[in-house]
């Protein structure tokens, strides 16, 4: 369904963030901190995990979610789950 191309994954993740959290795409830099820079919180983190599960058909572990701090962490988390993703 999704390509394992990192650029495409990044674009898909950004699209989800813009839609779910009403952020401007320009705010979504790899170093952007989810809580400190983007203003997200624990409820948002749960909805992010639910959305990833629905969009990418993967379920990150609770430990993985806890370790996510920045957008770069998100991109690498999704990439790490890439073997589970279907290629387009």
């Amino acid at each position, binding site marked *: 369904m999704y390509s394992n191309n990192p650029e495409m994954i990044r674009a898909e993740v950004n699209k989800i963030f813009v839609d779910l*959290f*009403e952020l401007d795409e320009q705010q979504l830099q790899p170093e952007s901190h989810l809580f400190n820079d983007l*203003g997200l*919180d624990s*409820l*948002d983190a*749960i*909805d992010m995990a*639910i959305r990833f599960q629905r969009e990418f058909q993967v379920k990150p572990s609770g430990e993985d979610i806890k370790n996510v701090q920045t957008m770069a962490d998100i991109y690498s988390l999704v990439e790490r789950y890439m073997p589970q993703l279907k290629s387009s």
Partner: protein
Amino acid sequence: MMDRSEKRIRVAITGIGILSPLGLSKADLLAGVRANRSGIRLMPEWENPSLGINTRVAAIVSDFSEQSIDRKLRRTMSRVAMLSMLATREAIADSGLSQAELQTERSGISYGSSFGGTSTIEDYFRGYQRNGVLSEGVVSTTFLKVMPHTCAANIAISFGIPGRIVASCVACASSTQAIGYGYEAIKLGVADRMICGGAEELTPTVAAIFDVLNATSTSFHANPQSTPRPFDASRDGIVVGEGAGTFILENLELARARGAKIYAEVCGFYTNNDATHMTNPSVEGLSTCMQGALDDACLKPEQIDYINAHAAGTAAGDRAESLAIANIFGTETPVSSMKGHVGHLMGAAGAIELAACMGMIEDQLLYPTLNLQNASPDQGDIRHLIGQAEPARVGTIVKNSFAFGGVNASLVIRSIKDA
């Protein structure tokens, strides 16, 4: 009965905020009621046979801006909580209370609705129907949108109000009871100010609930604004609707000390239940409720200038209420219902109708029951207000709200000049 000379904490109304089918502010509501205008509209989208709804008329709040609410606040709100938040924003601004005055343990919230977020529940079940997976439509905020106290909790978070929360979720009496409980909290000295009121969001499910009970209006689709017809011989049921009404109540002495504008005093409240039937109102229960509110206000029936009836336009409800009013007040006290103007706004009804009463005190005019032309002969002999607004001394008002479940609530309001 308490003697009036006994020292008791008195309660002032210092702020009002309204979203109604007549517009997005208290000023819009009053302008509509003063012009004797109806907020009822046709619902062509309910023609869809898959909905199976007979009624085609409703009272909708149009064009309010969800985006004016910050995302982090909005994410836990269904439409009902958004309406309540926006009405409260107007009420707080109207009251002139500062953040510092509001954000103390002495400020609380008493707010209700018939349901939590019905649109959220409908969305969830649409997803479940599609996917057959129970957890499919659930997100972190699903419960926060559908919980019965969603309005009260979202108001608390939105405005940083840390005192008590009372969620008066008693269907169509929710907001009148909420104002009553807010009044009691201040009178008891456990709060200095209470944000009170109620809200409702309208979905096809809500219409279907009343439709199946044969309680909705279905005969006036060709001329939607001629229904509902409270007390009228040709009434045929309620027009379901939505909205929100917020009242800021304050300890009267504190309100005066800060130089607040005071609309009126809440001086009496009573609530009870019929304990006889879930949907058939009891004349005895309603009579006891109004008498209880008068006793609390230390007023006699002949001291009341006007009664704002619940009267929604159903035969059973209008009949029981008019008989109860005749029991307590006789045939001379003027009576009208605002539901001809705004429909039945369920959990928001009492607060929005009470806001219209504030206009009557300000104008010294009694607004009539819109669409009442010929009072039905099968009901109590009371003095109806028909046609145009009537100049009158409007100093004391009884406001009624009644609900399925046999719940009754009555408030007594007194103009500050009469206090």
